[in-house]
């Protein structure tokens, strides 16, 4: 199966700062991939390289297109939602639908209208008069109404309240995702999306720290909760990646440790993606 996204040595520098540092990545189709990293890690830069919105060094192939030179063709197969409101503020909602109907061969107006009917977004209002949540809903509606194979969400819930956030991911799953499609979600709020992800990418300082499926994470990482008085002894023995204390107990995060070897030492659990991420970043939660 050919890769949906294939990046080889992708590097992007802004002066002395390397926003992307020799990134290599192969993402197969049919996945929901979370791109996780702290602020300034290079998430948005990576997504913009993938969509051909900026120049970079290295080789990239996305949906069989070279993003920089075949951006228009690539955008016919890709939907993008940014972390900021990007819809033209002077347009009315119905003018936006008219515009997209004319410009995007894969756009289905009926789908967008049907989605908008479930919202309170007025068709004859200018986009600049809508609330931030409405703007995101509108962008989501028109993006999901286009026939695309890849959906890229760059911090889509940034600045939205909890109701909108939940609704957004529900819509993406129910109205968009199927076996033939893929989603790449960038976020630094991993708890919000980890239940829907099939794969996860950790990025920091422009480098990919880890790319694995959620199943692989479960097999590779283990969380062991032990009494605090045994911590010194077990720390020497197990060499945890990270640890933290909770309610008088110590929690170890272990990599590549057989669960069988831990039986009887404490409570064994699969760590959350957030815990693994924090451990890999080298911090302590």
């Amino acid at each position, binding site marked *: 199966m050919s890769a949906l996204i294939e990046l080889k040595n992708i590097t992007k520098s802004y002066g002395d700062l390397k926003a992307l540092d020799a990134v290599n990545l192969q993402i197969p189709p049919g996945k929901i991939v979370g791109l996780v990293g702290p602020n300034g890690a290079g998430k948005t830069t990576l997504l913009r390289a993938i969509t051909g*919105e900026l120049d970079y060094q290295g080789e990239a192939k996305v949906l069989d297109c070279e993003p920089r030179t075949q*951006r228009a063709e690539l955008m016919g197969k*890709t939907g993008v939602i940014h972390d900021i409101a*990007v819809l033209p503020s*002077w347009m009315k909602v119905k003018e936006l639908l008219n515009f997209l109907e004319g410009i995007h061969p894969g756009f289905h107006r009926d789908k967008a209208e049907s989605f908008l009917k479930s919202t309170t977004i007025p068709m004859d209002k200018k986009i600049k008069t809508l609330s931030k949540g409405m703007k995101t809903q509108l962008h989501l509606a028109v993006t999901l109404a286009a026939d695309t194979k890849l959906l890229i969400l760059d911090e889509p819930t940034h600045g939205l309240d909890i109701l909108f956030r939940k609704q957004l991911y529900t819509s993406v799953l129910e109205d968009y995702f199927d076996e033939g499609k893929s989603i790449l979600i960038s976020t630094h709020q991993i708890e919000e999306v980890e239940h829907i992800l099939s794969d996860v990418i950790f990025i920091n300082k422009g480098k990919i720290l880890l790319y694995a499926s959620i199943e692989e994470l479960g097999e590779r990482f283990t969380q062991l909760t032990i009494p605090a008085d045994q911590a010194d002894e077990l720390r020497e023995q197990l060499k945890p990646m990270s640890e933290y204390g909770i309610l008088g107990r110590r929690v170890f995060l272990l990599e590549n440790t057989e669960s069988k070897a831990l039986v009887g030492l404490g409570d064994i659990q699969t760590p959350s993606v957030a815990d693994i991420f924090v451990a890999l970043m080298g911090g302590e939660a």
Partner: protein
Amino acid sequence: MKPLIVLLKREWLEWQRVIIGTILVITFLNLLMLLSVSRGSDFFNQELEEEGHILLDDFQINDDEEVDVDIRMNGSDVEITIDGENAPRSVEQILSNVAAPVVFGLRIGMMGTFAFILFLSMFYFSDALYKERADNSTLFYRSLPVNDHLILGSKIAAGLIGVIGLTLFLSIEYLVFLRIAIWIMGEPFTFLAGLVLGQVSYLRLIWDWFGYLIFAAIHMAPLALFLMLVGSYVKGRPLLVGIGAPVLFSISWAIIFQSAAFLITIGKFFWGFNQVIIDQWETIENGLDTGIVAYGNFWAYIFNADTAISVLVSALLYYGIWYVYRKNIPTG
């Protein structure tokens, strides 16, 4: 082709209020012209009624020649007596002299309309990309299956179509208003002006004017694209920066190097599109035999060195716009 039409329609949607507002302002000015003409004709008609004739003292017929014109109505006939050292003695001479102010009115209205549209177009070109950057919609347009060149090309095309189309439309409107104004003036002016305007081929006039607008558009393209380039880069106030920066640079150059060569070269280049009109006017001969030619033929001017330079400079500026546009530099 369809995406280009959709993008042009988008420009129309975004700028329609400005375009309609411009039409309304020019129409209002034309109505003011009608009003003043109506007041003036009342004065002359009253004089005609009370005095039995209209006497125009020291009426300027050429640049430095003045005559006294005495107009009388004899039934439906108009009698004109012209006295003065250089008074015209033949019908052709009289017609030629009457033609001067009428053609001047015709030219000045059309040129004024064009100047006004050119002034407004500077706002369009400086804002064309700046507004998209300011509301972040550059990211939206670039997430669509549309080539960058089509997006940029549609903006340039919309500007050109807007300037040329709007000027042509408003020029035709002006000609209609001019005819109405002359009709309102009543006899004997309607008769006299009718003699002149009857000699004007309006199709020829519009065709010549269209040729001039194409020529002027090519000539002004570097300025338009420069403003677009500035609008794709600056943090704020693109028009102020786009006009102010070159002016400051030119003045600084003149002060530092004690030479106004740079300023003069730029000035000469942009004056060029006015100079061709002056050249044409000086070579046009109007008369009963030749008919009235208000503007002259400008199509030949399109293929000259100045326009070639304009096209070349515009191409370089376009490359610059495309290069900067792809970087999507945020505004302040």
